[in-house]
């Protein structure tokens, strides 16, 4: 029987190990799997490569993870903290203790999609002629220049969704989906924490992330 429900965050993270690459959904804290991230800190794993849109809002799970020194490198579109104080990431980065690969946000999303769809890479017009194209192949198609961007995959993807069922299907609310559905496709093991874990299957026409992409679902009431 398909039953992807897990009973604890520890069970949700089983198999995670030092050196893993981990995708974390969320944009402006909406859709961030903070319960899973706090549990991840508890496990003690280190040397992680984190693929997330930002480096962690103040007080967020990711900010705590970076502050705890468990992250070797972040691939993201924003590495800036808020306000005048330096963020844990900025402190680590200016201190030479953490790596950074900065990627335009659309390219970031699409590189994950390429990973999830089994494509090696794609040609995008984004960032042509800029510092973020440095070292990347540039190529002309028709009358326009493009750069080659390559796929991103991960050992784990951790998401937050509004609803889930035992088949792993997920539904998001408001602006919560953001990187969740695409990250679900690109990891060896995808774990979702959900506000509502439904007894019956979700509406098949309204599912935003298909159960085939989701390996474990943890009930974590609360938003967002």
């Amino acid at each position: 029987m398909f039953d992807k429900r897990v009973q604890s965050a520890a069970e949700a993270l089983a198999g995670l190990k030092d050196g893993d690459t981990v995708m974390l959904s969320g944009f402006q804290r909406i859709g961030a799997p903070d319960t899973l991230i706090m549990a991840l800190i508890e496990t003690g794993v280190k040397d992680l490569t984190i693929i997330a849109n930002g480096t962690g809002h103040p007080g967020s799970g990711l900010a705590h993870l970076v502050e705890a020194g468990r992250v070797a490198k972040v691939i993201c579109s924003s590495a800036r903290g808020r306000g005048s104080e330096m963020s844990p990431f900025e402190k680590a980065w200016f201190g030479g203790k953490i790596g950074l690969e900065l990627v335009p946000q659309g390219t970031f999303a699409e590189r994950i999609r390429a990973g999830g769809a089994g494509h090696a890479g794609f040609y995008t017009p984004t960032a042509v002629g800029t510092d973020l194209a440095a070292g990347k192949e540039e190529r002309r198609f028709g009358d326009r220049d493009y750069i080659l961007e390559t796929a991103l995959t991960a050992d784990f993807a951790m998401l937050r969704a509004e609803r889930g069922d035992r088949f792993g299907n997920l539904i998001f609310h408001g602006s919560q989906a953001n990187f969740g559905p695409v990250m679900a496709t690109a990891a060896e093991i995808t774990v979702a924490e959900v506000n509502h874990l439904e007894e019956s299957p979700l509406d098949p026409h309204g599912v935003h992330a298909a159960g085939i992409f989701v390996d474990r679902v943890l009930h974590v009431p609360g938003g967002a």
Partner: protein
Amino acid sequence: MSNRLNRNQMAWRAAQDVADRSYVNLGIGIPVLVANYIPGERSVMLQSENGILGIGPAPAKDEIDPYFVDAGGQHVSLAPGGMLTDSIGAFTMITGGHIDVTLLGAFQVAGNGDFANWNALLANKGPLVGGAMDLAAGAREVRLIMAHTTREGEPRLVGKCSYPLTARGRASRIYTDLAVVDATASGFVVREIVEGMSRDALAAKSGAPLAFADDCRTLTAPEL
């Protein structure tokens, strides 16, 4: 003294050029203020790159749904006919040329439309590119809203950007506190200039040659 525009007036002026039934992405800072001044008879669908098509007015405090935030992290409502999507859906709209206009802030712009808005090379601040390069490459038209000079009086309209570029040749119109200027194949062309400022005085505040349109008009805005 010239009738320099304030932030709201700059946004107002940019809003007058937003066409009816267009799809628009507004950057953070002054651009988001444009939403307040779009003429009432025009219907515009505002997109946010975190997955909202159809941002409505800021919600009343008791009507906030915490799951609805825009790319700047502000609470938003959903306009009638809007829809929610994920980052892949949002950036398909952006890089695929489906956004009619993006209005962005910028540090510098060159007469050929090159512009820089993502990396001010700030000390102790991590870099943030977000969706800027995707919007710059993908929107059908890129317009900038920016002060004509830095606080120190240095020109922001330049011959060549010294800050890292966001895109090459993509900005088509610039709304400043002093003028409305087009970036064209032959360089800057001033379309409007605030009352009380001479062409020479504007040229002195610009870092590259300015041409003046035959029908160059006075730039005015209501009190805001």
